[in-house]
């Protein structure tokens, strides 16, 4: 069965917006990370995410066929048109932090662990997609996300099994973010149609392997695995937290003030 082009656009935006918004949050650490090597590492990971986002947004624009390129999709959509999961838009200081609170490194690493494990599992399977372009993007991205997962794992281990203070903050970060991880595995009719056509990866099937990656990391890091309960969602249909609006305000201001500006 041939999938509807609009379904493919929507799916590419989900994957691409996850990567784009994650890149924007990570880039906020540039020149502010706790140590020099970490500054380089987080900027590199942000760059990888941005690269994948550009490929996916460009593709979404091409399939849509309405003349929107990567810039139009990144800079000229409103918050309700973004399809990223809520997890990536949460501030670096944590979901409950007031606007402008400096970032918390434990939050960033807890978030990266959850996201990278999910992205890696997704891309590993998306390589077999019947959509040749999505498969090609995934074949590149899966190798990069393996490095992201490795990096986040090392920090969660070090901070969880570190000092009393680092343990307390790492546990708080994992507890605060855990509810938002459920949305990664939520499925809907669109994903159902696309995975039946062999285009998409069914996220519901990823929760078990994701737990197989994340739970041992938490255990070795001497962190408690939070209990499942509240599961906020809405990002995939454009219902976001207020944090995304602030993020987009900063990310889009230059392009909107100076349309077509070039370096």
């Amino acid at each position: 069965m041939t999938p509807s082009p609009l379904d493919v656009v929507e799916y590419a935006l989900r994957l691409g917006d996850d990567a784009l918004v994650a890149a924007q949050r990570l880039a906020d650490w540039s020149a502010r990370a706790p140590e020099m090597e970490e500054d380089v590492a987080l900027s590199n990971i942000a760059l990888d995410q941005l690269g994948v986002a550009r490929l996916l947004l460009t593709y979404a624009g091409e399939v849509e066929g309405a003349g929107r390129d990567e810039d139009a999709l990144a800079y000229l959509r409103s918050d309700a048109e973004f399809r990223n999961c809520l997890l990536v838009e949460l501030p670096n200081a944590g979901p409950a932090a007031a606007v402008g609170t400096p970032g918390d490194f434990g939050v960033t690493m807890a978030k990266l662990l959850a996201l990278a494990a999910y992205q890696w599992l997704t891309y590993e399977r998306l390589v077999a997609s019947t959509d040749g372009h999505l498969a090609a993007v995934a074949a590149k991205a899966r190798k990069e996300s393996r490095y992201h997962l490795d990096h986040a794992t090392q920090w969660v281990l070090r901070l969880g099994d570190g000092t009393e203070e680092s343990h307390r903050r790492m546990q708080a970060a994992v507890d605060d973010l855990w509810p938002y991880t459920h949305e990664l595995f939520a499925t809907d009719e669109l994903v159902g149609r696309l995975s039946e056509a062999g285009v998409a990866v069914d996220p519901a099937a990823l929760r078990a392997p994701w737990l197989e990656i994340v739970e041992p990391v938490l255990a070795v890091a001497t962190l408690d695995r939070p209990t499942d309960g509240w599961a906020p969602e809405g990002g995939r249909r454009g219902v976001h937290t207020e944090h995304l609006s602030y993020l987009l305000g900063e990310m889009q201001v230059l392009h909107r003030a100076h349309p077509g500006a070039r370096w």
Partner: protein
Amino acid sequence: MSARSAAREAVAAVVDPELRVVTIEDLGILRDVSEDPATGEVVVTITPTYSGCPAMDVIRSDIRRALATAGHTGEVRTVLKPAWSTDMITERGRARLAAAGIAPPAPASGPVPLGLPGVHRPDPVPCPRCGSSETEEISHFGSTACKALWRCLSCREPFDGVKPL
């Protein structure tokens, strides 16, 4: 020499803007140089190392300049498949990296083992300065997307290493 092989020679000599000791041919990112039979234009096909490699735009314009200097007009196409791997770096490329103090990558073929990292560290790569195998990785991420940061425990010098991908 045919027009096509002259064009190929010009394009193959383009150096990577971030690793200026190797050419795009050495790195294995130059996929093809062909001639459009209809227009006679040269078509150069390249592939990115990392998805977000910021050098791609510079590489494209350097290729166009090399073609123009050699008296050709042409276009540059980018393909993603098959995904680039560090195993595509040529022997000459590896030797040139090592000579410039950048450790060439270990083989990347096959799946990356999934275990608890932090416990699993990459195997030491020989120090490009003193040859010692007593080295350790400081960070997976270095000054460019494709490099990691290493330190030699014998001569104490830090060095870059191209990380297996």
